[in-house]
């Protein structure tokens, strides 16, 4: 029995995955930041409708079993309706060492780029930096990607590819360095190189373990703790909730954080 025949006879029910990678977003758009949107838009512009939606659902259900990103290629396994998960590959062209050297030279010249990257943001001017040396950071057409999936669906992108794309976009949301890594420069290499170009220092050692002292004086004594530092200006109760990224958990359509606010008002009232 060929694989195809088995597939045609069997009911096409998706096999649930216990510990799959799940999209954190539970409704609406998956990619939130402009740079991950830039990636997803290329996909959505294809007008695939249903397949993308199914992919999104897959991403939210946790059907993607694993995903790893290396220069120019993302490899994932996605659980479909067959016992063995499908293998998914999404390729993009990596820049050459020479191209990267030019990019790094330009990035090092302005503190803003590295500052925003380290703060977890893609700097708004970064596309111009790449354009300045004739490169495009974000592919602007689907043709710039190579996509493969081992599923029998001959349409590209299939829902497995789509699910992987959504998860990939979400990883770009949290770490813009991932886009650069995909293009051939890992976070560490980029930072090291930028540091060198900007003139930076070396790394400090880790602290060791601390055994209990057997000297009674040391055993029983506490070190001195300095008095509490200067007063923080009293903020509104629950200000911490506003400082965090949004929590994608809802209850009856309201964000979970809204249900928590009464607790923070109670905290602010000293006993």
């Amino acid at each position, binding site marked *: 029995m060929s694989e195809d025949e088995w597939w045609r006879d069997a009911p096409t029910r998706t096999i649930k995955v216990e510990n799959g990678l799940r999209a954190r977003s539970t409704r609406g758009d998956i990619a939130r930041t402009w740079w991950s949107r830039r990636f997803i838009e290329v996909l959505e512009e294809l007008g695939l409708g249903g397949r993308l939606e199914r992919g999104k659902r897959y991403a939210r259900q946790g059907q993607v079993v694993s995903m790893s990103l290396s220069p120019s290629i993302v490899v994932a396994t996605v659980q479909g309706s067959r016992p063995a998960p499908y293998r998914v590959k999404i390729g993009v062209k990596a820049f050459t060492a020479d191209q990267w050297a030019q990019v790094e030279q330009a990035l090092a010249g302005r503190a803003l780029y590295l500052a925003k990257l380290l703060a977890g943001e893609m700097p708004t001017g970064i596309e111009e930096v790449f354009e300045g040396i004739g490169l495009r950071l974000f592919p602007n057409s689907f043709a710039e990607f190579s996509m493969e999936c081992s599923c029998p669906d001959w349409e590209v992108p299939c829902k497995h590819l789509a699910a992987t794309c959504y998860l990939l976009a979400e990883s770009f949301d949290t770490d813009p360095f991932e886009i650069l890594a995909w293009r051939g420069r890992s976070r560490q290499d980029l930072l090291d190189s930028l540091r060198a170009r900007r003139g930076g220092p070396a790394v400090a050692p880790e602290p060791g373990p601390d055994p209990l002292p057997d000297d009674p004086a040391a055993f029983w004594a506490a070190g001195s703790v300095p008095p*509490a530092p200067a007063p923080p200006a009293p903020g509104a109760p629950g200000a911490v909730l506003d400082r965090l990224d949004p*929590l994608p958990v809802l209850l009856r359509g309201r964000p979970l954080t809204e*249900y928590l606010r009464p607790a923070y008002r109670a905290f602010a009232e000293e006993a």
Partner: protein
Amino acid sequence: MLALHCLGTADGQVVLWAEDSARPDRRPGKAARGAVEHPFAVPGAELAERLGVEGTELTVRALLPSHPSAPLPSPELVRDPLATAAAQRGAVRLRPWLVGGLATTAAVPEPDDVRLGASARYLAALREFAEDLVGRGRVLPAVTSSGHARWRPAPTGADSARLARLREAMPPALRAQQVGGDGLPAGTVLSSVLDTLVDTIARQRIGDLDLAPGGLVGDQAAAVTHALLSGLSGDPTMGTPALPTERLASALTTWRASAAHDGPVRACFRLHSPDGDETWAVEFLLQAADDPSVLVPASEVWNGGPNVLRRWVAQPADLLLAELGRAGRIIPEIDDALHDTHPTGLALDTAGAHAFLTRAGELDQAGFGVLLPSWWQTAAAEVGLKLTTTSPGTPGVVSGKSGMGRDELVQYRWDMAVGESTLTAAELKALADAKVPLVRVRGRWVHLDQRRLAAGLEFIRRSAEGSTSAGNIMALAALPPDDPLLPAPVVGIDGDGWLADLLNGRMEARLEPVKAPAGFGADLRPYQERGLAWMAFLDRLGMGACLADDMGLGKTVQLLALEALARADAERPPTLLVCPMSLVGNWQREAAKFAPDLRVHVHHGSSRGRLDEVDADLVITTYNLLARDSARFAEREWDRVVLDEAQNIKNSASRQSRAARSIPARHRIALTGTPVENRLAELWSIMDFANPGLLGSVHRFRARFAVPIERYHDEDAATRLRRVTGPFVLRRVKTDPTIISDLPDKVEMKQLCNLTAEQASLYQAVVDDMLLKVDESEGVQRKGLVLSTITRLKQVCNHPAQYLGDGSRIAGRSGKLARLEETLEEVIADGDKALVFTQFAAFGGMLVPHLAARFDTEVLFLHGGVAKARRDAMVERFQSGDGPSIFLLSLKAGGTGLTLTAANHVIHLDRWWNPAVEDQATDRAFRIGQRRDVQVRKLMCIGTLEEKIDAMIERKKALARLAVGTGEDWLTELSTEELREVVSLSAEVVIE
């Protein structure tokens, strides 16, 4: 006594355990192999009872520095020095013991006979930190791996740095639970204990609040979310049967991680105001969050920088970049500055500077350091109201009609001012026209709140000046800065006359001293006459007073003089005087001596009658009875309520406190010898007693004054508090040159203490026993009986446990010990040192552990058995600046030959009845010309042989200047009748 310690266990429990000085220091028999029960740890159940704390009993296997036969006691455990113990053998190393304890999340209690070890104190510090985190809302929900809902700390950068300090300071004893071959890592224990405390405190504050909405829940995801909300406010187990919580747990983990940029080093933005032109500069720096003085400018960071930051972060430059990148989200101008390769700051015009200043709070909230010019947000830089009062009466004689009183009319004028300087009309116009609310006035930058300015101008236009009652002005002056009654805060009070003097706290110096009335039994010293004038002045105003003079300066005599003065020419309802039980007798005797015209009634005992039938000038009672009989006290009219040792109401929620405040009286006075201005909870409670409402509610007071001052050392808040309370608190210290010059070289006081009921019945039994036998004996036998009886009676007066010799409990059984503790508390609060003499070495031995626990301090004890080398070492330590402050000495061992001039208090616990011996002992501290502030107290129990023999000696001295028979031998010559008279117990000596 107990030495209380704390352990954090691997599974996150907080365990209290204690060593007991009353338990044997080792187990009998041979040293056991493997871990056995700790020989002197208190079992968990007993500990729970002694501490009054609920918890779960458990046993922890802990590594403690030990000999093979027993663990070494902690330094906090103090045993009776006279109980000899055989030396321990074998090397000291860490050995495991099974330690009984109590897993609890309750606050660490501190009963009088419990001394906190470093780990327990450290736990209290962690708890305070946890309270602070919860109070500031720096906590976030989490789901534990076992599927429990839990509140977790979400520390800011400054908090993380503080955590790093706390980690370094952790006493190893806290992580002594044995896991594998060693204790637990400090970081693990710190985070698990802090987690536990934060969760507990968060839940306490949530109280009965239910975060979960009612109604049907829906699908499983909703059910889990719902269970989390229920679990965060109620039972932490998230539903039964267990729901799949992993997804929610990981979503929360990712979410909480977005708060994790708060590290021990942060970017700091320092705004420099221009001196000449209008160019402001924001400087970029890195700052250690817990030590804000560690500041490294960006230029140095880019150059590789100094190593100081490497203690916390490996890559300071990356950190600064990331921080700047983040800060740009709050202040977009910062992004503009980052177009340089190595930006060091940002230039702003005045409008930009104002925008930065107004958003600086957001930067601070987001965890950045912000250093603003010192004038920003200080009262000096704010436009406020200045009050000038002119009152006709000049400060002078209080008695008689002198134009001072709450109802007197005084002239007032309001002005707008910056700091102390009044603004001219032209300046006001310039301010009103300013486009940017940041204006330079007289060379200083001023932050202008334009709404407030307009409201202030309108206020002044309507009522710039006029006259009103002094009481109205006083009420206005006490208003908090944000009170809606005034359009702007009062930034200054000035003027001429008594009212301005009062409001500025200068009254005591301006008043004419008042002499005690004729017939008063003592000459007041000049400062006492000023104190009397001050109290009489506030009395006339009907404002309560807190006389907080140092101990020994004569608060009792000043108060008695006030009563005598008030009653010299007017009939008044009685004054109610509340004092600790141990002081009732003293007040009785002092009143009889100094103000013999006052009719004194002591309200006490089971036969205490109705108060409305009492016809007296002074009714004396105790704090305990005040709470118990509060309804009775409230039933009649009092002219005045006086609280002696007013620190007894420091807990404003206690029954005693509430009872004290509820008694209706025309006037209120609090007497205390502790420095109230440094103990804010106490200050609130005392001021709210003396002048109800003056400081607002206790919650407002905590938020407005106590927290800013105690936790953050806020000088502005301290200044405001002084301005409000200053008029009503008078504290003179004995080291003040103007006071010292009024004092004699040596102040000697006899202090009378009351017996407890237990002491009285023991005393009576000893007396009865002697009287039964004395007639049947004669000669040497009779002499021996009398002398031994006297010794036993003196023991009873000291402490029942000394007389019984049974090693029973020490706390709360002796009036004399209570008096000693009250005295030592003030000695220690003032940073003074005391010599305490007793002729009974055994009594000294009993007191050492008790006092060490009660005052959490080392207590030196010199007795006949101390070898010379150790004695010299003790003396040297006591004489050194930071040495122990209590030195117990047996009269025989310590009476001669020592120089102990570091002490300025000498307390004789029992009497030798030989002035030469007593003086010789006193002279250890007192050397003519060396110091002038030595106070000598001789404690005696009222109504006992101690008081009577003292009176006999005084009488004889006065009559014949005889060298009366010193010592006790002469007593054996007395007839049985005379003896009965000396030893019998007078009525009215027991208070409760």
